[in-house]
């Protein structure tokens, strides 16, 4: 484990956190939606546009070389961040959503047929549901779900063996649930699936920047994440794909960058990853993300995870002491967020009140509508943390919740 970081010093790297909202110090607890960016990432974007901006892979002039080198260095850095074998296993996307859509559209159209089963879980984000529903409609494949136990948000694995039929071609599941804070046993599940020849995808949107991730240790074929949730810019994310699997997949979109040679009738495509990257990509995005990954790993994702869990446990304990509150998510091994509902106060009212007290929460279905439906709720309020958050902020938040309860009784 790396040395214990100076959290207060790190917090000062985030200019946005130092502001008043409605006359109160901002408490930013919506990190599961998007994280804030440190000065170094913002500076990297400015530096790129002030000094190195050019299109990639196209020119031989100096600026194009610089841009291309920085763009590809970010790819290699991402491979290291996930412990992939090489940068060739990293495809740039707009984020987790596009990464999953890419797999569904390309791997899915090639390998799925009528009668096949796509196995998901009941806690998935819409971005790991809808792309599969679309490809299922096209191919005639069916979707099955590993059930969730209830308010704890953990998976009920007692039925797993009966769900892993020979029709299952793909298992796709979330690493950390964005609405419950559950950490799924992805390595265990991927190992089981692999033995049966099932291809696996892990949605790492909530995990990549919060705990050490090793795609080889997890044993997944695909891993998707978003840059903006891990201190990087919006508009960039990545898909890790095991090279052997990527090479079986047809292109995603057609255009420049992804071709070897083009004729009027027939085109030869590049190998992975470039085959999946048509057109001019987001260039500044990967460059900013590179700095973000360096920043996180200098802190140590093991340290970040410890800090996340400490804050979440602290918040959970304090909220548990209140009356008329329903808490979601696991009691053990909780990721850095707490989802809850107050009796007789709608989540949106909670969020509106918190906002006037300077506290940024999220209220809604968190893009997990089927899960909300299953739990018999429309929405929850959620506080989600990152390493720049403090226990003092949790104290402010809990006082606000008490104030809301008082207001509505």
């Amino acid at each position, binding site marked *: 484990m790396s040395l214990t970081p100076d959290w207060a010093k790190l917090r000062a790297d985030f200019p946005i956190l130092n502001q008043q909202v409605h006359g109160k110090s901002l408490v930013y607890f919506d990190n599961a939606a998007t994280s804030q960016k440190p000065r170094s990432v913002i500076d990297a974007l400015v530096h790129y546009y002030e000094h190195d901006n050019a299109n990639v892979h196209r020119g031989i002039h100096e600026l194009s070389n610089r841009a291309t080198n920085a763009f590809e260095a970010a790819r290699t850095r991402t491979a290291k961040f996930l412990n992939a074998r090489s940068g060739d296993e990293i495809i740039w996307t707009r984020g987790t959503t596009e990464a999953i859509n890419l797999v569904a559209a390309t791997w899915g159209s090639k390998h799925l047929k009528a009668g096949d089963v796509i196995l998901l879980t009941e806690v998935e984000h819409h971005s790991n549901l809808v792309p599969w529903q679309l490809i299922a409609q096209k191919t005639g494949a069916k979707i099955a779900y590993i059930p969730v136990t209830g308010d704890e948000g953990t998976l009920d694995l007692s039925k797993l063996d009966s769900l892993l039929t020979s029709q299952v071609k793909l298992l796709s599941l979330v690493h950390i649930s964005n609405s419950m804070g559950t950490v799924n046993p992805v390595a265990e599940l991927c190992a089981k699936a692999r033995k049966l020849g099932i291809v696996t995808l892990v949605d790492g949107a909530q995990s990549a920047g919060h705990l050490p991730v090793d795609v080889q240790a997890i044993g997944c074929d695909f891993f998707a994440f978003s840059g903006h949730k891990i201190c990087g810019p919006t508009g960039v994310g990545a898909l890790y794909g095991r090279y052997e699997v990527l090479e079986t997949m047809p292109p995603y979109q057609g255009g420049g960058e992804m071709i070897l040679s083009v004729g009027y009738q027939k085109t030869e495509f590049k190998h992975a990853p470039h085959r999946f990257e048509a057109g001019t990509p987001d260039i500044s995005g990967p460059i900013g993300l590179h700095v973000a990954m360096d920043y996180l790993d200098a802190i140590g994702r093991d340290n970040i995870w410890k800090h996340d869990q400490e804050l979440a446990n602290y918040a959970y304990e304090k909220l548990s002491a209140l009356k008329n509150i329903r808490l979601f998510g696991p009691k053990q091994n909780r990721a850095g967020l707490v989802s809850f509902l107050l009796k007789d*106060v*709608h989540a949106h*009212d909670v969020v509106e009140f918190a906002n*006037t007290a300077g506290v940024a929460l999220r209220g809604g279905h968190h893009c997990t509508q089927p899960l909300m439906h299953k739990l018999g709720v*429309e929405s929850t309020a959620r506080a989600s943390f990152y390493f720049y958050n403090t226990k003092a902020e949790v104290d402010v938040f809990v006082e606000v919740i008490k104030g809301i309860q008082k207001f509505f009784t």
Partner: protein
Amino acid sequence: MFDDINDLYQQVILDHCKKPRNFHEMPQCSCSAQGFNPLCGDNLKLFLTLDGETIKDASFVGSGCCISKASASLLTENVIGKSKTEASQMFERVRDLVTTGNTTGDVGKLAVFAGVYKYPARVKCAILAWHALIGALKGEVAPVSTENEQT
């Protein structure tokens, strides 16, 4: 702690969200419509009993945030006894009120929604029941959504 919020959560609104009026199903209604707000998950059903052109009775069921519930509750009180045309006029007035803070003509108790325009994300909550009203009067079958509401 919540200094700025009283213009949105007025006493009348709080009262109606805690104790909604006309909050029940109406099995013998003349028409009804469902309203759905994808943002909050507000989901309500509005029932009307008509006598010719006149709204004789109105009620609603469903769940939602304080603003949407209070709005539905106050709507039912407001439209009972009005003609269909008057109710549609009231919809226009309420829409102006919650999007701009101003309106022409008298809106009675509904004036408590004058602060909503300062909270653009909540306009949909305040207008949902009114869309359901128009849907019911038009006899629309598909649920009404606030998805396309201009805020």
